[in-house]
C-alpha cells in the first residue's frame, strides 16, 4: 500500500463516491433479455420440437395480441398508474368491428373503416378512464376497472345474444395470410412496438409519461400541465386495446364479448417481468416486449417439453413471480443506498 497525503486520499474518496453518469441502456436492464435467452436455450436443449423454425414462428404469432395490449399498458405503468380496462375495451372493439365489417348479423361492409372505428372506440373508452382520473381524482385502479365494466356492457348490448361471425376477407386474412413466415397480425404487433418506441423516445407525450412516473410534482413546479398528458396516455392505451380487440376478432372469425378476458393481468405481468415496474418511471416499450416474449416462450416451452396442462398454469405463475422478484431485488438495494 502506498502512502498518500491526506489531500490525495480525500480526492480519491470523492472520486470513488461519484457514480459514473449513465446514458440510456445500462447493465441493470440486462436481466430480462438474458433471462429470455437462457429460457429459450433451456427449452431448445430439452425439446427438439421447440427448436424448429415453425415453432419459433408459432411463438411470435402467439405473442401478437399480448404484445399490442402490453404496448398500451406500458405507457400507463410508466406513469405509475395502472390500467385494468383492457378486457372491457377489447370486448367492445371486438364486437364493434365484427358488426361493422361484412358479417352475418347485418348488411354493413365498411372494411378498413370499420377497423378504424373500432380502434377509435377503444381510444374513446381509454379517454374516459383518463378524464375520470384527472377530473374526478379517482385512482386509475378504480376508473379503469369501471371502464372495463362499461366496455363489457357496451359489448354485451351490441352482442344482443347472437354471435356476429365475420365474413370480411381482409379482416380474416390478417390472421391467416403470412409474410416472411409470420402472420400479418404479428407484423402489426411489430409495428406497434416500433410506434410505441418512437413515441416513448421522441415525443413529448412519451417523455412526459416517463417523467410523470419519475416525479410528477416536479413537472408541476416546472410549469407543465400534467392532466392533458395523463388523459392522452390513457387514450393511446385504449387505442392499443381497441386494435388488440380487432386482432382477436380476426383470429376467431367472430366477435366475442370475452375477447379480452385475462389480457389485463397477462399484460401487466409481461410488462413487469420485462422491467416496466409498477412504481412508474422505469422500463419502457422494449422492456415490455421482451417480457411478452419471455412469458410466451414460457407457455410454449412448457407445452413442448410435455409438462402436463394441469400443471402449466401454476408453474407459469411461479416463474412469473420469481422473475419479478429477481427484477425488483437490485432495485430495492439501490434505494436503500441512496437514502
Amino acid at each position, binding site marked *: 500500500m502506498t502512502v498518500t497525503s*491526506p489531500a490525495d*486520499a*480525500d480526492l480519491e*474518496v*470523492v472520486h470513488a*463516491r*461519484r*457514480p*459514473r*453518469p*449513465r*446514458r*440510456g441502456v445500462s447493465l441493470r436492464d440486462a436481466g430480462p433479455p438474458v433471462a429470455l435467452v437462457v429460457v429459450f436455450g433451456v427449452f431448445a436443449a430439452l425439446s427438439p420440437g421447440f427448436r424448429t423454425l415453425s415453432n419459433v414462428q408459432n411463438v411470435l404469432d402467439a405473442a401478437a395480441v399480448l404484445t399490442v395490449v402490453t404496448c398500451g399498458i406500458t405507457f400507463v405503468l410508466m406513469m405509475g398508474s395502472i390500467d385494468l380496462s383492457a378486457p372491457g375495451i377489447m370486448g367492445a372493439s371486438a364486437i364493434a368491428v365484427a358488426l361493422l365489417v361484412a358479417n352475418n348479423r347485418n348488411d354493413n361492409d365498411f372494411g378498413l373503416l370499420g377497423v378504424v372505428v373500432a380502434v377509435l372506440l377503444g381510444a374513446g373508452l381509454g379517454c374516459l378512464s383518463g378524464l375520470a382520473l384527472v377530473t374526478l381524482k379517482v385512482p386509475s385502479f378504480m376508473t379503469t376497472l369501471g371502464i372495463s365494466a362499461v366496455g363489457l356492457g357496451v359489448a354485451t348490448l351490441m352482442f344482443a345474444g347472437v354471435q356476429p361471425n365475420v365474413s370480411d376477407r381482409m379482416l380474416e386474412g390478417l390472421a391467416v395470410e403470412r409474410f416472411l413466415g409470420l402472420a400479418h397480425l404479428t407484423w402489426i404487433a411489430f409495428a406497434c412496438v416500433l410506434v410505441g418506441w418512437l413515441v416513448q*423516445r*421522441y*415525443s*413529448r*407525450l412519451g*417523455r412526459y409519461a*416517463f*417523467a410523470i*412516473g*419519475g*416525479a410528477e*410534482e*416536479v*413537472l408541476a*413546479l*416546472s*410549469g*407543465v400541465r400534467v392532466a392533458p398528458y395523463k388523459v392522452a396516455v390513457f387514450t393511446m392505451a385504449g387505442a392499443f386495446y381497441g386494435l388488440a380487440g380487432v386482432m382477436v376478432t380476426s383470429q376467431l372469425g367472430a366477435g366475442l364479448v370475452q375477447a379480452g378476458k385475462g389480457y389485463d393481468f397477462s399484460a401487466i405481468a409481461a410488462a413487469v417481468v420485462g422491467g416496466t415496474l409498477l412504481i412508474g*418511471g*422505469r422500463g419502457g416499450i422494449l422492456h415490455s416486449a421482451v417480457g411478452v416474449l419471455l412469458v410466451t416462450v414460457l407457455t410454449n416451452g412448457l407445452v413442448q417439453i410435455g409438462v402436463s396442462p394441469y400443471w402449466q398454469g401454476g408453474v407459469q405463475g411461479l416463474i412469473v413471480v420469481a422473475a419479478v422478484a429477481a427484477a425488483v431485488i437490485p432495485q430495492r438495494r439501490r434505494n436503500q443506498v*441512496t*437514502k
Partner: protein
Amino acid sequence: MTTNLSRRPEPRVPASAPALEVRGLVKHYPGVKALDGVDLVVRRNEVLGLAGENGAGKSTLLKALVGLVRPDAGEIWVRGEKVRLGSITDAANHGIGMVFQEQSLVPNLTAAENIVLGSEGPGVRHGIYRWNTLRRLAQEQLDKIGSHIDPLARTDSLTFADRQMVEIAKVLRIEERTSHPPVIILDEPTSVLESKEIETLFTQVRRLREFASVVFVSHRLDEVLDVCDRVAVLRGGRSVGEVPAAEAAPAELHRMMIGSTGSDDHYHGAAAERRDEPRRPRLVVRGLSGRSFRDVDLDVHAGEIVGIVGVHGSGREDVCRALFGAEPTTAGDVVLDGEKLDLSGTRAACAAGVGYVPAERKTEGMVGPMSVADNMTLTKQKSRCTGPVVRPGKQAKLVDGWIERLSIRTPDRGTAIQRLSGGNQQKVVLARWLVAGDVRLLLLDHPTRGLDVGARSEVYRLLRELANQGVAMVLLADSLEEAIGMSDRIVVMSDGRATTEVAAPTGDKPTPLDLVKEMV
C-alpha cells in the same frame, strides 16, 4: 412559446431600481398569520441572505415570490414595476426563479430534459423531441455556470452536487424570457451537500452575482454570513431588520431571529448540573468491524454523552446503526451493562434497552399520518397492551403523561404526528424510547437536523435531562459546535477507524479547530 422567447421586452425602468422589492406582504392561513407585513429589497448583483427560525415565514415569502402562494395583501415590485405573480410561469416571465429545497428534478430523465423541462422551446417541435437541439440548449445553460456535466446523463446517476448544478442551470433558463438580470432564489441549497461541495456551490453563487441577484436561504448562519452581502431577518412573519454580512456575527443574527438573548452555546451550561462520579462503563465496544468501519473501540458510561465526529465517509453513521443491529457487522464484541449485546437485528437491540433516533425523521423516525399516541407507543407495545389487546385507557394515560413531561405542543394525543412542528415530532420520537422506562443507551443520529434554534435548545435540554437520569448516549451531532457543547467526551472517526478521543468536560471544551485537525 418560441415567439415569446425571441421577442425580448426592452427595459423601461431606470437602472437604479432594485431588482425585486416586497412591500407589506401579508398571508393568512387558517389560524396562522404566516406573513404579517414583510418588506424586502433585493438589489442588483447582490447576494441577499434570508434568515429566520422555522415558522418565521421564510418559505411562504419565497413561495409568494415565485407565484406558488397568492398573498392576501401587499405588493411585489420587479425592477420598479408592480407585478402580480399568479403562477411559477408568471414569476419566470418576470425573471424570478427558484431552486427548491427538496431537489426538484425528475430522476429518470436526462439532465438536458430537466434543464429545459416545461420550456423546451425549439427542442420540441409539434410534440416531437429534437434531441440534438435539446442537448445544445442544455449545454448552453451548463456553459453559463461552467459545469462539465454530460447533458445526456440520467439525472439519478449524478451526485447531489451535480444535480444542484443542473437545477441552477435549469433556473437560469428564465433568462430566455426576459432581457433583465434574473433573480435566483436558493432555498436551503446546502442541506444535502458535503462541505467540499458547499464550497463549489458558493463559488457558483458568487459567479451568479456577476449577472444576477441571488436570494440565499439557509439554516446555517455561518454559511449565510459567508456567502451573502446582506442578511435580512424574518421573525413571526415580519421583517425585523437587516445587516451587512461583513459586520454581523452569528450570535447577533440569532438574537434577531429569536428576539431574545439566546446564544449559540446555551446548551453548554446545563452540563454543569450533572453529577460526576466514577462509574464503570455501561457500553463497551471492542474491535467492532463492518462494511465501512474497522476495529472500533468505544466506552460510554451511564449518564454520559459521547459524541462521534468525522467527515462524510468516516463510517460514524454505520457504527451508530450497527450498535442498533441495523447494519451488519463482521467482528467485534459489544457489551451492555455486563451482558453481550446481540447485534443480529433491531428487535434484539430494542429488547436490551437500546434506543435509536434516526437522522431521517420523516421517513425513518415516524409514521406521519399516525397519531402522536400511536407513534409514541410504536416500539414498546407492551406499554399500551395487555397481551395482544390494545388498552386505549392505558395508552392515553401513559402518552398524556409524556406529552406533559416533555411539554410536547400538540392539540391532543390523537393528532397526526405530521401536523406537529419538527421539534415536537422529534420529542415524540425520543419519547418512544422512554415510555417503557427501560432505555439504557440512546443512539442519536443527528437528533436536531432540520430543527430551528428554539426547538434545538429544547431537544438539548431534554437530552441533558435524560443523561442526568443515567441514560448513556452516543451522539452524531449536526455540527462540531453542537458535538462539543453536548458531549462529555468526543471520539474522532476517520476512514472507518476511531482515531482519537478528546475529553470535553464543562469548562474545558475543545475548540472546533482542535477536532478538525484530528478529523483530516
